[in-house]
């Protein structure tokens, strides 16, 4: 019995460690994180001898724009030979985890490409401090970069949710997409068109829809709904307009316009569209470079987003930010200033088919798909300010993003009713706002 007790004790200890290590292993006490400033300078991040500066850049790719970025760093080095760069490329879904670990590990990178500044606000360099408050004037409205009077990052490129279609399938079916704003479909018209395309072409499904809250939100903004009140102070989720948007999305799945394997499974919508078996992909402007390089088997193009009671898209984008506690904040800020010059920014935008947020780069001369950029601009201009304001409130979206998506999946699976989902989200949003304000 004694032996058994000892054995059980050992097993229990081992199991404790095994079960907890997965969670705790990546964590460091906040006290350690507070010492980041000193440890970073001791970590080898800074190579300041003889004026040499080493800038680590944490980067993710939509396609292969990292190569383009590296070419720009070489241009920068022509006038600044004392600066060297190191690109740490990570998958997008690992980006924030990796940055968090680097920060709490005391080795923040000098620069990071980010889409969400919310969790990192306390760790980003205030660019106004190094570049002056005029620096913010270089950017158009769109992506929010100023938080509590501090400029935490420079917007690099703007994205806009959009819809790409299989032109070959549409031609097979004898259907054309809207050619101008006056021809934009309502979703009901779109549904009728999809029936025609699926029936008369090689595609199996009408649409694949990226499995993200951000993409889905386009539908509810078009329905006249929003997550928050216009002043962003209270929940506005449980409304008839939101009910209609969620119900419509469920009907699209129930009626077989959308394959269940994306929102209820783990299929990649990008790959499904590229396989040629889907007529349309609800994604966004960032897919342009990917599809130019990857689709050879059929013709494709972007078209206007269908509308409900109003037109809307949702803006998004990427920033480049400098991190505190690296010892090279000033050089990192100088590089951000350099790369944000219109002529330098234009190189990156044109090579990668991105939309710029730099003043003066609104209308670039893209080699491919100039008409698509006009469509993106049109969708964005018709969107109003609420989508950008809500998704720019990143402290908030970080708290509700996962539940918004997962709850919607439960509605599609019949686990939650639409009413239950709206009540659940309304409650979560109210609690999240209370947490933010406490």
């Amino acid at each position: 019995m004694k032996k058994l007790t000892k054995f059980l004790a050992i097993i229990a200890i081992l199991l404790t460690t095994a079960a907890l290590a997965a969670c705790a292993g990546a964590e460091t006490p906040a006290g350690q994180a507070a010492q980041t400033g000193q440890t970073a300078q001791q970590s080898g991040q800074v190579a300041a001898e003889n004026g040499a500066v080493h800038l680590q850049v944490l980067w993710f790719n939509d396609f292969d724009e990292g190569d383009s970025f590296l070419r720009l760093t070489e241009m920068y080095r022509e006038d600044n030979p004392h600066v060297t760069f190191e690109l740490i490329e990570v998958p997008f879904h690992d980006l924030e985890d990796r940055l968090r670990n680097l920060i709490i590990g005391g080795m923040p990178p000098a620069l990071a490409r980010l889409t969400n500044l919310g969790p990192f606000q306390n760790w980003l360099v205030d660019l106004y401090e190094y570049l002056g408050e005029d620096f913010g004037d270089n950017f158009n409205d769109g992506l929010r970069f100023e938080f509590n009077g501090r400029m935490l990052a420079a917007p690099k490129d703007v994205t806009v949710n959009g819809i790409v279609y299989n032109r070959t399938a549409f031609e097979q079916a004898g259907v054309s997409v809207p050619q101008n704003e006056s021809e934009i479909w309502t979703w009901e018209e779109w549904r009728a068109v999809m029936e025609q395309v699926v029936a008369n072409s090689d595609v199996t499904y009408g649409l694949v829809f990226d499995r993200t809250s951000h993409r889905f939100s386009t539908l509810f903004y078009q329905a006249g709904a929003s997550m928050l009140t216009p002043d962003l102070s209270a929940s506005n989720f449980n409304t008839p307009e939101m009910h209609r948007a969620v119900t419509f999305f469920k009907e699209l799945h129930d009626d077989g316009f959308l394959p269940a394997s994306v929102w209820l499974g783990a299929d990649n919508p990008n790959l499904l569209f590229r396989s040629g078996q889907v007529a349309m992909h609800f994604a966004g402007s960032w897919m342009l470079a990917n599809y130019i390089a990857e689709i050879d088997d059929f013709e494709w193009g972007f078209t206007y987003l269908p509308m409900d009671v109003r037109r809307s898209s949702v803006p998004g984008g990427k920033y480049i930010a400098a991190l505190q506690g690296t010892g090279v904040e000033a050089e990192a800020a100088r590089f951000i200033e350099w790369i944000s010059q219109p002529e330098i920014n234009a190189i990156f935008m044109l090579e990668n088919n991105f939309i710029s947020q730099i003043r003066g780069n609104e209308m670039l001369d893209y080699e491919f798909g100039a008409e698509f950029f006009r469509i993106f601009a049109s969708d964005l201009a018709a969107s109003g300010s609420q989508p950008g304001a809500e998704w720019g409130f990143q402290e908030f979206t970080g708290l509700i993003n996962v539940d918004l998506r997962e709850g919607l999946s439960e509605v599609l699976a019949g686990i939650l009713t639409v009413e239950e989902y709206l009540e659940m989200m309304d409650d979560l949003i109210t609690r999240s706002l209370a947490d933010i304000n406490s």
Partner: protein
Amino acid sequence: MKNLQMRMFPYLMLLPMMIIFTLYLFWPALNGVWISLHSWDGLNPMAFLGLTNYTQLLDDRNFTRAFSGTMIFTAITVPSIYVTSLALAIMLTRKIKAAGLFRAIFYWPTMVSSIIVGLSWRFLLGESFGLVNFVITSFGFEPVRWVTNANMALFTIAFVTTWSLAGYYMVMLIAGLKSISETYYEAAEIDGANFWQQFFFITLPLLRPMSLLVLVLSTVTVVRSFPLILALTGGGPAGATRFMVQQIHETGFSRLQMGYASAMAVVLFGVLAILTIVQFRLNRGGEQDAN
């Protein structure tokens, strides 16, 4: 003095391993318990909450759903792994041709990364574009919702998990079977015992220590399943296959609630400890039946 040295010697030999365990296992684990008493986003300063995270777990439908899902998945998968691996082990310890080849074939899935296993089966079982459904529909049948129907997805991952792990436990059970003396079976045959009588009255009782080991290890492995399920179903449909470890990961790294996720991890430990103790009790600590 010599006596003291003799007493100290084993502990000195254990010291390097204990240092490694302390640094990489015990300390993070204790740190996890500490974090579970706080609100923390993984980056900014922690705020002490006491046991609030634990009391919140009781009202959290995502947690209770993941918890009950994990228990159901374990209840299906562990017996399935044990039965499959035992059947394979018995088959391969009998005098059949190319037993070594079959042993290698059955063991092979355990050498493949669980992510690759998940992705491969997703390629085969994808509802809209999977190979199996392609074959089924080409014969004029309706496609099967392998991973987009909640019940079907549960059985799909139980099957794939069994497929990927059975070979590993098969090897352990083969070792256990080979340690049973042939004389028992010879005596039983002389007494006229058939295959099933030999199995129930000789093999199973004498295999009890190894069976306990297989059951404990497979339970711990199955409860902590994560990469394979993530690759195969992503936790879907609608969270039907989102089990404890994925829930902990999502809570910590997507919702940025590290303290709350740590509380879940502590509960998971408690569950594993209880399951292990119950298995020990039921198997009488793996002791063989004296009769």
